[in-house]
C-alpha cells in the first residue's frame, strides 16, 4: 500500500514539476545514460519513468544499445502502452525486428493506444513497380508503332470512394473481389461531373473487358488519356505500375506495359486506384489497349 502511495506521489510530482525541473530532469537523464554507457538495467528502469518523454527515449536507447534484449521489455510495455509517446516509441523500434516476433507486440500496442496516426505502422505499403512501355524504355532501341488499338468501355465502370485509404488492405484489386455494390461511372468525365461532389481523396475503379485472340506483337500497353491526379493500376489482380507526379499529372497521358499480365482471348479485370488532392478528380479520358510492334 505504501509503495502504491509512493508511486502515486511520484507520478503526481512529475506531473506538477516546474518546467525548469522537467528540462533539468531530461537533461540529467541523457547525461546519466551516457555516463552509464547506456546500461541495460538503467534503461529498463527508465522505460517506466513517470516522465513519458524519458520513458520514451529510454525505449529508443534500449533498442539501439541492447537490441537482443529489448523485445521482452517491449512486450511488457505494450500491455500498458496507452500513452501515445510510449506507443509510438514501441511501434517504431519494433520495425527493426522480424515480423514473426513483432506482430503480436504491435497488435497489443495498437490495442492499448488506438491513435489513428499509428495505423501507418499497421499499413501494408502500396506496391511500387514500373512496367515501362516499350516506347519509354531506353533499352529498347527499335522503332515502336501501334498496330492495333482496343478501346475499353467508357461507361459502367465500378467506382467507390475510399476516404480512409483502406481499399488496398481490403483487396479491392483482387480478381474475385465483389464490386457489385459499387456505383457505376463513366471514365470520360471526372467523378464530380457525375455526382460525386466535394470529394478529394482516394477512389477505386474496376472494369471487365474481353480481349481478342493473341496477336503477334512486341509489346502491349494500357494507355490512359488522363487520370486526375495520380493512378495505381492492377490488371487481373497483378500490380502493373503507377502514374504519380502529383497535381501536375492531372491531364497527362501515360502508358504502362501490360504484356505479362494481359490475358489474350479472355476476360480481363482492370483496377485503378486514383488519388485526387484538389478540385476535380478521376479517370476522365478514355482508356485503350495498344498493341505495339
Amino acid at each position, binding site marked *: 500500500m505504501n509503495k502504491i502511495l509512493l508511486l502515486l506521489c511520484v507520478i503526481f510530482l512529475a506531473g506538477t514539476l516546474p518546467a*525548469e525541473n522537467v528540462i533539468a530532469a531530461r537533461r540529467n537523464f541523457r547525461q546519466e545514460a551516457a555516463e552509464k554507457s547506456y546500461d541495460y538495467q538503467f534503461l529498463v528502469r527508465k522505460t517506466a519513468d513517470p516522465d513519458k518523454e524519458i520513458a520514451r527515449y529510454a525505449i529508443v536507447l534500449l533498442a539501439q544499445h541492447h537490441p537482443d534484449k529489448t523485445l521482452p521489455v517491449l512486450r511488457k510495455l505494450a500491455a500498458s502502452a496507452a500513452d501515445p509517446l510510449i506507443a509510438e516509441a514501441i511501434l517504431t523500434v519494433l520495425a527493426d525486428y522480424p515480423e514473426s516476433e513483432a506482430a503480436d507486440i504491435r497488435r497489443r500496442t495498437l490495442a492499448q493506444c488506438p491513435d489513428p496516426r499509428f495505423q*501507418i505502422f499497421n499499413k501494408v505499403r502500396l506496391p511500387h513497380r*514500373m512496367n515501362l512501355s516499350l516506347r519509354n524504355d531506353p533499352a529498347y532501341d527499335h522503332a515502336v508503332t501501334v498496330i492495333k488499338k482496343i478501346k475499353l468501355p467508357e461507361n459502367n465502370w465500378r467506382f467507390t470512394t475510399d476516404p480512409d485509404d483502406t481499399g488496398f488492405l481490403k483487396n479491392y484489386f483482387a480478381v474475385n473481389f465483389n464490386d457489385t455494390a459499387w456505383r457505376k461511372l463513366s471514365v470520360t468525365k471526372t467523378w464530380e461531373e457525375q455526382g460525386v461532389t466535394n470529394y478529394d481523396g482516394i477512389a477505386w475503379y474496376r472494369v471487365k473487358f474481353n480481349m481478342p485472340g493473341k496477336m503477334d506483337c512486341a509489346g502491349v500497353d494500357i494507355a490512359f488519356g488522363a487520370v486526375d491526379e495520380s493512378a495505381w493500376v492492377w490488371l487481373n489482380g497483378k500490380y502493373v505500375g503507377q502514374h504519380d507526379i502529383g497535381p501536375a499529372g492531372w491531364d497527362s*497521358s501515360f502508358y504502362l506495359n501490360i504484356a505479362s499480365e494481359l490475358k489474350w482471348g479472355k476476360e480481363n479485370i482492370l483496377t485503378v486506384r486514383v488519388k485526387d488532392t484538389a478540385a476535380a478528380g478521376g479517370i476522365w479520358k478514355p482508356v485503350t489497349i495498344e498493341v505495339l510492334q
Partner: protein
Amino acid sequence: MKNLSFIFVSGLLSVLLHAAEVIPQGRMVFYRGEKDAVVTVKVSGISSGKLTVTSPTGQAKNFTVNSDKVKIPLDTNLIPGKYQLRWNSGSDSGSIDFTIGPEYFTGFPICIWGDGFVSHRLYQSHGFTHAMRYRSTRYLLRTEKKFYETDTRELDESLADGFIHGDTFDIGCARWGFAAELKAKYPRISRYNSKLSGNINILDPQARHDLENAAFYLSKKLGSHPAYGIMNINSEVRDSTMPSFSKHDKKAWKKYSGMDIPELVNNKYAPYYTEIPGFPASRIVPDDDPLLKYYVWFWKHGDGWNEMNSRISQIYHRRIKHPFITVFDPAVRCPPIWGNGGNVDVLQHWTYVNPDPIRVIAAIDEVRAMAAEKKQKVYGMGQLFVYREHVAPAAAEKEYPAGRFDAIKNERYITTPPDMLRELIWAMMFRQIHGMMFHGTGTMFPMPQKGKYTLALPGTEKQLADTLLNQVKPLAPLVSTLPDRPARIAVFQSIASAIFAGRGSQGNESWPYVLHRILQYGGFDPHMIYEEQLLRDGWGEIKVLLLPHCDVLSASALKKLQEFQKAGGIIIADEFLMPALMPDLRLNSRTLMNGMSDKELTAAEKSVNPGNIAPKELSRKANLQRTGRQLAQKLQQFIQPLCSADDPDIITSSRSGGSGDYIFAVNDKRTYGDYLGIYGRIMEKGLPNSGKISISRPAAVVYNCLTGEETAAEFSKEQTVIPVSFTTNDGKALLLLNEKIGKVEISAPETASPGTVLDYQIRITGTSGKAVSCVLPFRMTVTYADGRVADIPEYAVTAQDGRYQSRISLPGNTPAGELIISVTTLPGKISGTAKITIK
C-alpha cells in the same frame, strides 16, 4: 522671265535646304554627376565643317564635323534642372535642350512590385523610390518598337525626377509570348515520357542558350538607361518545377551522383515517407539515401533554375554599368534548402498582414536563413492587399451588412486594412533589411483600367505614404546598417522532413511561423535556421532550438541536434518529432494552431472585443500569447530575453549600434474593426496600448529616434525600463546611450569653388566631449546661397565611432555665396552647421 523665277526659287530653296541643322538623338536626360555622358547630335548643312558648342556654364568647345553625327561630351555636374547647349556653325546657331536629374539614388529602395502603368510621380509622392513591372520581355514580341519608345520616354521622365524603374525577366514560367514558345519547345518530361506543363526544361543546352540570348538582347535594350535599375528574375519559376527525365536531366544527375534517377522520383517531393517501401521506421534518413540525395540535388541544382537565374543576373550585371539590382522572389517557396534564386543580389518573400502582421518577421527570418549561404541581401516584402476569401465570407454565404461592401462582393484581392499595414511595415524594420517591396497597387490607387485588384478602402494610401515618408525613410539607413544580433533562440527547419513529409512553410502562414510568433509574444526575438546552416556553422550562441514538424531527420542533422543538447542546448518540439530525439519541452501544434474556447478566455483577453464579435480570431491570438508567456516562464532559468515588454502586445527587438542599443517596438494590440472585422475573421483595428520595455543593460539616456525626444526611463546597473505608449498599431525606434548627445561638429573647408569636390566630416559627441561610439542616424541638408536645397541623401548614419565622412561634388553652377551644411541628429535633435563660401 519664267526661267529667272525658277532659278530664284530653286536658289532660295537650296539655301533653305542647306541651312545648318543640329538634331539631338537618343537620351537627353542625365543624372547629376553622370560620368561619360554624351549628347549625340545629327548634323547637316554645316558648310564650314566646324561646330562650336557652349555649355550652360559658358564653356565653349569646337568640333570638327566629318560625318553626319557629332558626339558632344556633357558635364553633368549641374544643379538638377532644364538646360541648353548653344551651338554655332558659323552661319547658323541654335540650342539643344537637356535635363539634369538628381544625383543617382543608391539609398534604401522602396519599390512597388507591378506598378500598374501609373506615373512614377504618384509612387514618388507616397514614398516609393522604385517601381517594377513586366516590361522588356515584351520586346521579344513583334511589337517591340512601340513599347521601347514608350519605355525610354518613361525612363527619361523618371531619371529627371530621381526615380528608378525596374523590370521583370519573366521567361521561366510565363504562359505567353516568347516564354510560351520556349515552354512548348523545351518541356520538362515526365517519367512516363509525357510533356509536363510546368516551367522550361532549362537543363536542355539549347534552352539555356535561348534564354541567355534573350538576356543579352534585353539587357542591351534598356540597360544603358540609368533609370533602369532593378530586375526581378523569373519570379515564381520554381512553383511549377518538376523532376524531368529527358536525356539532359538523366545525364546531369548521373554526372553528379553516378546513379540513375531513383525509381520513386516522380514528383517535386518524395512520396510521403509512409508510402516508401523500406523507409526506416526510426525516421532517420542516411545522408546518402538516394532519394534524399536526389531531391537535395534537384532543388539546389537539378532543375537548373538556380544556375540559370545566376547566369541571367550575371549577364545583366556585366552589361549594365550603373548600379543595378537583381531580385528573386518568393525565395522560400521551396524546401528549406540553400540556393533558391541563384546568385541574385536580393532575396525576398511575399507576406500578407493577416492573421498577425508581425508574421512578416518570421518571413524575413526565413529568407535570411535562405540567404545565409551567400550572405545575400534581403528585402522585406509586404502585400498591399488581402484575399477577400480569407477575411470575409464568400458573397453567396451571407448578406453583406455594409453598403460599402457591395462593391467588393465578388472581388478577390482587396485593400489591406491600414492599421495592419502600418504594423507590418514597422515589423519589417526589426531586422537588417536592405530594401522594401510592396505589391498590389490596384488596391491602393485608382488604376487606369480595372484589374484583378480592387480599391476597397480609399484613404489607405495616405496611411501608407505617412509610414513610408515619415517613418521608414528617416530610419532606413539605420535599418539597413545595424546588424542583427546573433540568434539565441531559433526555429529549425529540416530538409528531410520537407522532402519526405512535405513539411516547411513555403513562405506561408504555417506552424513554423506560428512558433516564431509564440516566441515573440513570449518576449523573445527568435530567428530561423536551416539545417544546412546548423551543419556548416554550428549553433553559435543559440541556447534554444524549436523543431516544428521534424517527422524525419537526416542522420547528420540528428547527430548535430544531439550534440547541441549534449552541450546544454534546449530542444522544444511538437507531437511530430521523430523518436530518436528527446525534446526538453513539447508543444502541441494542433491546439496552438487553433484557438481556445470562449470560456477559456480571461476578461483581460476579451477586453479588446467590445462588440463581442465571433471570438475565434481573438482566442487564436490569445492562445499564442499565453503560450509565449508560459514558455518564457518555463525557460526563465536557461534563457531570458535581452529585451522584452510587460505587455504581450508590445513586440520588441534590439540591435546593437556599438556602445548604444536600439530597440524597435511595435504595438500589436488590435480589435475587430468596421472595414473587414465585422465578419470576425480579422482583427484589423489598432488599439491604444501602453507598457514597459525592459532591456538588460544600463544607460544614461533613452531617445525616441523619430520625435527626437528623450524618453523617461528607470535606469539601474542591470537594466533599463522604458515606459511606452502607442495610439494604434504603430512603432517606435528607441536608442539607449551611456551619455547624452551633446554636439554635432562639422569640419569643412571655409571656401570652395563650383565644380570641385568638397570633403567634409561630421563628428557627433556626447556631453563629455568624446565622440559617441555608436551608429547614429541624422538628417542632413545642403543649402545653396540662393536657397535651393542640394540633391543629396536626406538621411544617413554615422559609423560606430560617431563619425561620418563624405564629399559633395559641387555642381559647376553652384551659386556664389554661402553654402550651408546642416546636420540634425534624429535622436536628441541636436544640430550643427557649417558654412562654406562658394567663390
